């Protein structure tokens, strides 16, 4: 009791935070679970309907479309935004001139600071068929026909994957660079004594030593896959919707636009379960806990 009194001020300091999380995290979680079993209307009765919402979602072909889109686009982003920053970090590490290294790092990081609205706005314009730079180059330099990237369902997923990679690579690159900097220099010395070339030092020292950083980045990226929303919301249009609408978009449409809160809550719980499952699988595969 004496202890509790001694620390009472500290508990008071925690009150707002705990209250906030109760109202805006735990309560919605419970409420969401409840809603997913209800025929939820904004007014009036909300009878319990068992698993009806879940089965409605599972029988909705749009839901399965969204699952496939999420896996394809999310998987693509997972690969590309893992490999691209890694390559860039390794490449930056080989640069001798410090000023160039700093400048490159600084510029590559900028897109991470911009919102998806800005990034989307810029690239929709850059990719537009009549006045975008990309198509101008295709037409005038390579004498090709202009491609309407944003209205071509064949390109849609690629655009989403590549733009997400472009936006985040500078950020992830910093994580890899930090990993590279913390590699013990004596490993390189030993390798050089044995006559290892730069290439061999890269393959036999840098990359193996980076494995822990790689695991962290991979885990962080995995958690992000199911959350893709802003990007799709901004870049989608009716022509490509079927190829790019991900799970979060499905939930948003069901819940906020069609006001079918029951099925939307059920779909959210699939997202939650998938996130947990993927986290566990990735942790198992990368043996993250052994780091």
């Amino acid at each position, binding site marked *: 009791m004496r202890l509790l009194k001694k620390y009472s001020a*500290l508990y008071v300091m925690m009150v707002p*935070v705990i209250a906030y999380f109760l109202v805006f995290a735990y309560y919605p979680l419970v409420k*969401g679970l409840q809603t997913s079993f209800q025929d939820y209307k904004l007014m009036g009765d909300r009878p319990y309907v068992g698993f009806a919402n879940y089965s409605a979602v599972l029988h909705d072909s749009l839901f399965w479309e969204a699952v496939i889109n999420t896996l394809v686009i999310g998987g693509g982003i997972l690969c590309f935004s893992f490999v691209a920053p890694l390559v860039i970090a390794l490449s930056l590490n080989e640069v001798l001139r410090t000023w160039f290294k700093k400048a*490159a790092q600084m510029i590559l990081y900028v897109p991470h600071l911009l919102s998806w609205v*800005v990034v989307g706005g810029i690239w929709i314009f850059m990719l537009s068929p009549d006045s975008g730079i990309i198509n101008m180059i295709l037409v005038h330099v390579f004498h090709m026909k202009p491609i309407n990237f944003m209205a071509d369902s064949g390109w849609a997923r690629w655009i989403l994957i590549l733009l997400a990679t472009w936006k985040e690579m500078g950020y992830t690159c910093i994580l890899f660079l930090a990993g590279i900097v913390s590699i013990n*220099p004596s490993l390189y010395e030993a390798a050089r004594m044995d006559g290892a070339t730069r290439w061999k030092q890269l393959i036999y020292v840098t990359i193996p030593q980076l494995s822990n950083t790689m695991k962290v980045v991979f885990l962080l990226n995995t958690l992000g896959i199911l959350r893709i929303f802003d990007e799709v919301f901004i870049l989608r249009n009716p022509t490509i919707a079927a190829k790019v609408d991900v799970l*979060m978009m499905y939930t948003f449409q069901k819940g*906020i636009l069609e006001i079918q809160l029951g099925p939307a809550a059920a779909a959210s719980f699939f997202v939650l379960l998938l996130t947990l499952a993927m986290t566990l699988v990735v942790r198992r595969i990368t043996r993250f806990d052994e780091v």
Partner: protein
Amino acid sequence: MSDRFERLGWKNKAFDMLNVLFLFGLMLTMIIPFINVLALSFSSGIASMRPEIVLWPKQFSAEGYSIVWKSLDIWRPLMNSVIVTVAGTVLHVLLSSLAGYVFIYPRLPGRKVMLTFILITMMLPQEAIMIPLYVVNKDLHLINTLSSLVLSGLVSGFSILLMRSFFLNVPYEMSESAKIDGAGEFRIFLTMYMRLAAAGLATVILFEFVGRWNMFTAPVMFINDSMKYTLQVALKAMIIDTSSNSGTYMVTTNVRMAGIVISILPLLAIYPFVQKYFMKGILLGASKE
């Protein structure tokens, strides 16, 4: 990493050249769009609509900016964004620091329970509770208010842990001696820890500022009233939903680009500080996960 003298061979030199070219090419994919946007925003309306690559203003004019400001009233969403960003950031930093401070006491009874309570919220993706969160906001009559946006993400486990790790660097003896002098917890927190962990505060402030300025999901969900739109939502309506026209008013390319430039100015203004503090924060944050 390796010494300069072993890089004399032509193979090494060729590799260095290609390497720099590769990075330079990547940098161009960031620089060219940016110059393009800037140049178009300062071009006249007609010139900005011509199908050509513009890297320098054609028929220099600030007409885009005056239209976006006066006719499209972008100042209103801009003000909304400023209010939401500033209020949200200040409250977020204050509340997260308070909780972060509590966790530096290793022998506090109930510490583990509270820490688990917070760690669970970090595992829970915000997006998975998007729908019930909407209902909660509706029940609290927060839909269509700026308060809903300030409240969205008001506290985060990430910031709490980040602040805690900065507070841990403050020497423990200092607070001990202050306590002997009769200072209360809250005073120690405000006068010593908040001051000494200024670098940490700067990091969290920057993270939050950028996050809130760019916030998109919450305003899309909670705000329908166009008078309450934030800059990002207004910008989306202006530059993406209207590829060429918005009802009665034609939005020319220079106007759209001016909107983009206005929205990224605050971010560019804080970029030097980002350079200084962000990197540290990112690394601390990543090691926490």
